[in-house]
């Protein structure tokens, strides 16, 4: 896919999840992969205390032409990648629209309010139905369980990047992923990340 084939310019992606799920790493990997394709990427995110157990978001603006604001305007997300399912709903409330799409990890992380019993967590079926209702198209994968089978739930974020590549909306290629990951990680970790990426692609395409 060529960069001129972006379905929107800027194409706006929000990667969302819970602090500790590897949101920042996922957004940087995706941003660097697209930079390899000659695209101009702007990423906005927050970290620090705001991350501890809280909802986190990375905003990616992908453009053939120029830098954009590190905050996506309300209602202008084209793709929401949710590492945790209720975060998809939360993001769509502010940044969604009838043309938005979503890729959703189905494994919940319970907010402390749910753990303490003050509020309840929706059922998997409810969540799927709501995400579908708020998007033009939605994909659901259980990346966390697949990552657990690989030995560590932290691979969930990379698996979701693989799944996003599998969807095919963005010019993401395995060789770019490999280069980006080799540049930023010790060599002994590259292989496992490649497997996680491949597994993600497979989860969408099979």
């Amino acid at each position, binding site marked *: 896919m060529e960069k001129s084939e972006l379905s929107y310019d800027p194409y706006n992606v929000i990667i969302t999840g819970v602090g500790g799920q590897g949101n920042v790493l996922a957004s940087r990997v995706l941003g660097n992969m697209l930079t390899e394709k000659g695209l101009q990427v702007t990423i906005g995110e*927050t970290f620090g205390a705001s991350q501890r157990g809280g909802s986190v978001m990375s905003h990616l603006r992908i453009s053939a032409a120029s830098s954009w604001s*590190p905050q996506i305007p309300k209602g202008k997300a084209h793709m929401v990648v949710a590492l945790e399912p209720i975060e998809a709903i939360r993001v769509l409330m502010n940044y969604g629209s009838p043309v938005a799409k979503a890729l959703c990890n189905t494994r919940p992380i319970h907010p402390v309010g749910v753990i*303490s019993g003050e509020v309840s967590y929706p059922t998997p079926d409810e969540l799927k139905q709501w995400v579908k209702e708020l998007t033009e198209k939605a994909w659901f994968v259980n990346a966390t369980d697949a990552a657990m089978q690989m030995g560590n739930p932290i691979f969930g974020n990379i698996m979701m990047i693989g799944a996003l590549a599998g969807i095919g909306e963005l010019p993401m290629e395995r060789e770019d992923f490999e280069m980006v990951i080799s540049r930023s990680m010790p060599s002994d970790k590259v292989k496992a990340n490649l497997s996680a990426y491949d597994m993600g692609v497979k989860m969408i395409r099979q």
Partner: protein
Amino acid sequence: MSNLILEGKKGSRHLLMGNEAIARGALEAGVCVAAGYPGTPSSEIIETLSDASKERKLYVEWSVNEKVAMEVAAAASFAGLRSMCVMKQNGVNVASDFLLHLAYSGTRGGMVLVPCDDPEALSSANEGESRHFAKLVEIPLLEPGDFQEAKDMVKWAFELSEEIKSLVMLRSVTRLSHASGSVVFDELPEQDTTAHFSHSGAFIDPVEGPMTTLPVTWRHTQLQEKLQQAVSKFEESPFNTYTGPQTPELLIITSSACHLYSKEAIDLIGVKDRVGLLKLGTTWPLPPKLMQQYLIRADKILIVEEVISFLEDNVKILAAELASKIGIKTFFGKKNGAIPTAGELNPDLVVTAIAKILGINYEAMPQAYGNRAKALADLGAPGRDLTFCPGCPHRASFWTIHNVLQMDNREGFVCGDIGCYSLAMLPCGFGTLKTLHSMGSGAGLASGFGKLKMFGMDQPVVATVGDSTFFHAVLPAFINAVHNKSGFILIILDNSGTAMTGFQPHPGLQVDAKGDEAPHIDIVSVCEAIGAKVSVCDPFDIQHTQQTLFELLEDKEGVKVLVLKQICALSPEKKAKKMYEVEIDETVCLGENCGCNRMCTRVFKCPGLIWDKEKGVSTIDEVICAGCGVCASICPAGAINKKEVA
């Protein structure tokens, strides 16, 4: 793995975080010394430079606090080297005493102060601003408007500083520092600088004489002349740009990240041919000729900036002075309520302001969609309160501190401080903290509370501080308390690093910024030398910690220190390594029938625990549990078992 910041070639384009771009800019400028104190959103600048110092001739340190960081960097400048000091907005307050004096004394080698402000306090206890300091101490202020500028402007700041022999402030914000964008590299210079401090010349010789603020009025006048030199450079600066029609209906004047929001807002509502955008990179002092050239073009002026007005005030003063040339203007911004005076901005807030001024209707999303999404989010996306990480030593520490003070029953309270443990103000730390201000203030307040016995106050006083905070700002308050015979318990939550900002080393550790071995200052020995009684506990040992704290509360005189030592769960040496396999015996857990009424999930609330509604028992979330084993000690039924991981 590779170090892109060093290896990237001239002309190559990379995706860099704003902080990395600032660091690369400093390297391209040939910076020799950089010092700072960790603080979000500034920390990655020093981190990136300390990585680079492994390969380049460059001295980088995490200083004990921001004032010392500025002094360390100034010394390098006095010796003719280019130097930089980096801090979050609070740091400028800490360093401000030296800052004022440094402005008067002037600098030699180029010296740049990089404060990173945090509008909306996304990771701060305030949204204070450093811009006002530039005006207060009379130094030039630069504000990059995108990622490329974040790099390029640093280099320009060094040149300006060297030319006018004054410190230059280059201010960033969270949405640049922690955002990433495309940056094209320039080349890295050869390194052959040598340091020498010339001090034998005439007293007022700025190049060969001593460095001082004396004689004060003479130096002050010199400083003001330097500022005028900066203004003439600013008139020609490539960092002040205009886009838009020749005579716009509305002129937006902006700087920093607000430039990107304004650009986007103009695009969103399609008013490119009606609205002009003047993006300023040199925001103090404003260049009057340049300002005149653009102010004359429009009758309506909107100033877009974050938090309290700075640019707006300065533009208005200039416009008043230029009134006979540019005519009468109508201003929109903070003063008329078009732009909020608290919190950060975003493209939507700028759209709202422009749409109102120009009478345009704008809908961010179809109303029906917005209503439905809001209804579903209210129903199905329960809020995510901040909490300590699974396995965090602070949850265990505050569990004990809170329970002991409750059982003591004298309305004892805890003065808090700055770090992850500030979260103990919230339910995740059982609402234990009752005061929270700046670095070290908990100890200072405790020192004061501890002297109020003569007025009948008999509540036990406790202060909790982190290990890095202890060195940064607690020591003077602690010494003050001991000397003045105050009475309180100083609890040092020692998790072996500056954890909240990403494990930067501090003087209590055996490692420096570069990763080399360094002499460590032992917290316990320091406290003992100052004359306090010191106890040390592992907060994961709930029973022992509880017992010790009870004993300290019995001892009513003097300052007692309790060090709660346990490494942060996210530290590189601990991360993803479980100490215990934890499991819940479903046959023993009595659930809601237990006298505890499921204390583990209802009160202790570690994210690693889940309440299984159907079975009516607690369970462990294998994905989340960090294996600290603390919950095993709090279950009254003994239903939680821990097994040491081999």
